[in-house]
């Protein structure tokens, strides 16, 4: 675990770069978090995914897998991988300030 400064605010991240306390996240941190993942600009489609990640996390206690994202976020699996080439659920979770989603499928 380490403390990082995102948008001038100290936040706790685990060894894999996921937020330890999702409550520390604010929307103003997303751009900087995205750049850390190699995404230069967040489009409205990225934001759809980010908001869906957070609402699922707070609803169900874990973020959605790619399958759930593809079925329920309104964005297809193909497009999800275009938006987040290094793994949609994992990368979007880091940008959305939630723990790594758990699920095999």
């Amino acid at each position, binding site marked *: 675990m380490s403390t990082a400064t995102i948008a001038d605010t100290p936040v706790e991240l685990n060894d894999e770069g996921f937020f330890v306390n999702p409550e520390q996240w604010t929307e103003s941190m997303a751009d900087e978090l995205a750049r850390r993942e190699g995404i230069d600009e967040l489009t409205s489609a990225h934001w759809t995914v980010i908001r869906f990640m957070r609402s699922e996390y707070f609803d169900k206690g874990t973020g959605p*897998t790619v*399958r759930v994202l593809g079925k329920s976020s309104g964005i*297809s*699996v193909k497009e999800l*991988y275009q938006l987040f080439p290094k*793994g*949609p*659920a*994992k990368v979007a979770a880091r940008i959305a300030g939630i723990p790594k989603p758990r699920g*095999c499928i």
Partner: protein
Amino acid sequence: MTDAITKVSIIISKGSLDGVYPGLIMANGARAEGIEANLFFTFFGLDAIHKARHEHIKMATVGNPGLHMPTMLGGIPGISTALTHFMNHKMEKLDIPSIPEFIEMIADTGAGLFACKASVDLFGLEKNDLIPQVQDIITVGEFYEKAAGGQIIFT
């Protein structure tokens, strides 16, 4: 994270439900982690990408001690179909996609799907017999070229 896995090539060689799913789950999971993944279907594993057969992949009920039932029972006509229905129903409840849906999703994640040339020849198949997501029919040598620099998993 210097020894992190960055690429996997997964071989699916069996044509039963329990022979096909593990490889699919590993390929899909690899892509979700941002790992490059290729799927290579050989021998009876080809059924998983066969247009007419991929919707009818069944549980192996004979010679499968994991089912904990007498071997002779497993051979009774209809048992394999019944158990396959039961298993599919259970998986649907857990929101695990059917094999055709799963393979389509895996292709959408950007994983490569390939058929083994020796097996395609052996079964007298053509590219047209296979689902459109299959990129190519390749030789074992071409498989090793594609697998270069990554891990190979045989299922």
